[in-house]
């Protein structure tokens, strides 16, 4: 196995790490207005605060996975970075606006009592979670499906070419998957009414999520070249993915939310692995001409740079995993729906 393959896998790991972690906090963000409904406006605010506090210590560290994935793409596959980021310009612009609003909202919303101020930031959290999940789902749908890339490694389509039905289905799948994932997370991290509501919502969302996922799996056979690249046999990854999403439903029904959460993480992981397997060894599939695709070889950095970066990654990835794991351990307890003990 050469360094190019290792770096392709590492970039994949960074994106998977991002979706496994930020996936539930996107979901939690989208559930802020949904699960906080109450007749008493003060209770609405308290519930919203509680929901936000469940991800308060983690969302920023989770988001760094995306930035690191971007940085690693730049360092290891500069042409991939250049082609994708300039080609998906408008989509990334919208993604950035959403992520900016969301990040500021977490910090700002509770720093002023004015209900309109709080409401504005709460909806920023909602949109700032919905839009990135949708856009990134669409982006990965397009990466698997292929986009118009010309012979000079440049994107030759428009923003609207990215909004094809298959990619939109991938976006929808990621959105609903994140909401389900977020609801399970909230059922693990809250107490009382909030916990019951989150858990009930998770049970309700499971079937629609399964349906959308099955639709995505089926259409993938038509929209991508999975048959020629991976064959008819679904293989261990996709079988595991299917089993995992079924087990999510089983564990939710049994009230075993911890297991449901783990199975949801497995579902997201296997879905993304499948997307990366479809792409491999290409990083941007050209829908115009197979020879114009960017691959892990023609888009990569020099062997020297890949070697340097491998050493850096070998040292720092375990350290990051260790302290990020520790941060989850520190905040492992459930959060009560009470003003005392809420930070944000």
């Amino acid at each position, binding site marked *: 196995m050469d360094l190019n393959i290792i770096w392709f896998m590492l970039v994949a790991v960074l994106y998977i790490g991002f979706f496994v972690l930020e996936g539930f906090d996107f979901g939690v963000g989208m559930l802020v207005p949904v699960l906080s409904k109450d007749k008493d406006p003060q209770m609405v605010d308290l519930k919203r605060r509680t929901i936000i506090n469940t991800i308060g210590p983690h969302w920023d560290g989770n*988001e760094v996975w995306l930035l690191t994935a971007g*940085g*690693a793409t730049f*360092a290891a596959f500069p042409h991939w970075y250049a082609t994708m980021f300039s080609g998906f310009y*408008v989509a990334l612009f919208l993604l950035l606006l959403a992520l900016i609003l969301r990040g500021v909202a977490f910090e700002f919303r509770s720093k002023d009592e004015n209900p309109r101020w709080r409401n504005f930031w709460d909806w920023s959290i909602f949109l700032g979670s919905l839009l990135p999940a949708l856009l990134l789902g669409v982006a990965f749908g397009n990466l698997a499906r292929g986009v118009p890339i010309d012979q000079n490694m440049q994107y030759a389509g428009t923003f609207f070419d990215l909004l094809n039905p298959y990619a939109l289905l991938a976006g929808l799948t990621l959105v609903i998957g994140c909401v389900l994932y977020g609801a399970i997370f909230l059922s693990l991290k809250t107490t009382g009414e909030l916990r019951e509501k989150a858990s009930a919502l998770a049970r309700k969302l499971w079937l629609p999520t399964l349906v959308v996922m099955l639709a995505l799996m089926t259409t993938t056979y038509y929209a991508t070249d999975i048959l020629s690249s991976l064959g008819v046999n679904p293989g261990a990854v996709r079988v595991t993915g299917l089993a995992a999403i079924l087990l999510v439903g089983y564990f939710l029904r049994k009230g075993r939310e911890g297991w449901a959460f783990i199975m949801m993480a497995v579902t997201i992981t296997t879905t993304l692995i499948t997307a990366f397997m479809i792409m491999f060894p290409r990083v941007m599939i050209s829908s115009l001409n197979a020879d114009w695709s960017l691959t892990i070889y023609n888009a990569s*950095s020099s062997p020297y740079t890949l070697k340097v970066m491998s050493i850096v990654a070998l040292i720092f990835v375990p350290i990051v995993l260790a302290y990020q794991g520790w941060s989850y351990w520190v905040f492992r307890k459930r959060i009560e729906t009470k003003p005392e003990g809420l930070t944000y």
Partner: protein
Amino acid sequence: MDPILLARLQFGVTTVYHYFFVPLTLGLSVLVAIMETLYVRTGQDMYKRMTKFWGKLFLINFAMGVVTGIVQEFQFGMNWSEYSRFVGDIFGAPLAIEALMAFFLESTLLGVWIFGWDKLSKGLHAVVMWLVAIGSNLSALWILIANSFMQEPVGYVLRNGRAEMNDFFALLLNPSVGVQVPHTILAGFTTGAFFVMGISAYHLIHKHDLPLYRKSFQIAAIVGMISIVMVSLNGHTQTQHMVETQPMKMAAAEALWETENPASFSLLTIGDLSQTREIFSIRLPGVLSLLAYNQLTGEVHGIYDLQEEFQQTYGPGNYIPPVAVIYWTFRFMVGAGMAMVALALYALFMAMGDMFETNPKVLRLFIIAIALPYIANASGWIMTEMGRDPWVVYGLMKIEDGISPVVSSGQALLSLIGFTALYGALMVATIYLLGKYAKAGSTGTVVPSLPDDQMPSLVGAQD
């Protein structure tokens, strides 16, 4: 509209804006860590309130720095794809290392710090703040390593139509890193110190929680004094390095059109609108030579000669940066820096004695002086970046060759307007919150003035 102009404007707007928050993060993180350490060492409740008060302002500022930093990492690829292809092999590495080594650390542990007051021991909580401060400053180090490659490309070989890394350690030990890193990080400490002094001055004038703000002022005065003096000395070294490596930037900063020996320092120069000739100039003879070589003689090349020289080396073209911008930003930076040296000296003098309440006029000066580091930071970077014009990577790639060919003017205009509008609105919200919490003070409400019992002494005051 010209797509290059739009892309440059967007990079300029988003970067200057991002850099409005970064220096305060660099400095205030360390100051808050010092305060929390004092809390752990003394167990005094005052230091806890102090840590929480400045910590709150730190967090508002930090959030803005983080979210605007995401744009920075993305827009190389978005707007400057050909630049990214050309330098990705060597420029991408420090950015990726920054994310892996520093950004993860500060972001993850800041979450722990904010929410961990009751979950961690006092000591561990302070250690977490130190790690946040280290993470923030390490982040600056890696970004400056990347920027230094643009100023002074080293450790590369031109191969496969791009700059490929062939010596990682040369990249790290770039002489430009040696002058830029201390200057930038210490400027960050200076920013933090003037921020703390200014807001403390406000509360000292209004006699809120006097012991806390006196102590805050003292800590900031010490840090500020050391930092600003070192920034200035380092700035001198940096000037000498610039004469050697980017003579055009130096000539533009001095509006030095003709080569001179001994070279004069411009006190005031007015040029014509085309920025290619001077109309009027007052100059101090020999002072530029002194700055450049530590002696009163020595040749400093003028803009006309350098233009000739560059045409011979790099082919026909205009190698003159916008002289007026470079000239004035250099003066704003140095002027603000000198004012800060004077103020920091006075602050230290004041903090050592018992002069806080006797002189509210001077204290008011420190509130206004919060603006000084911001002026110096922004103008310093505008000078550094625009002074490299027409190069995006000095001597290797011109700005216009780095742009994304697939991004249309319409798209670039859309994002320029979008970012500017959002950033403008967020600036209003941020200043509102910073003002609100800065004024609310350490107890959230106004504390009645305490009897002026005793003044904590400057060093080792742990009474």
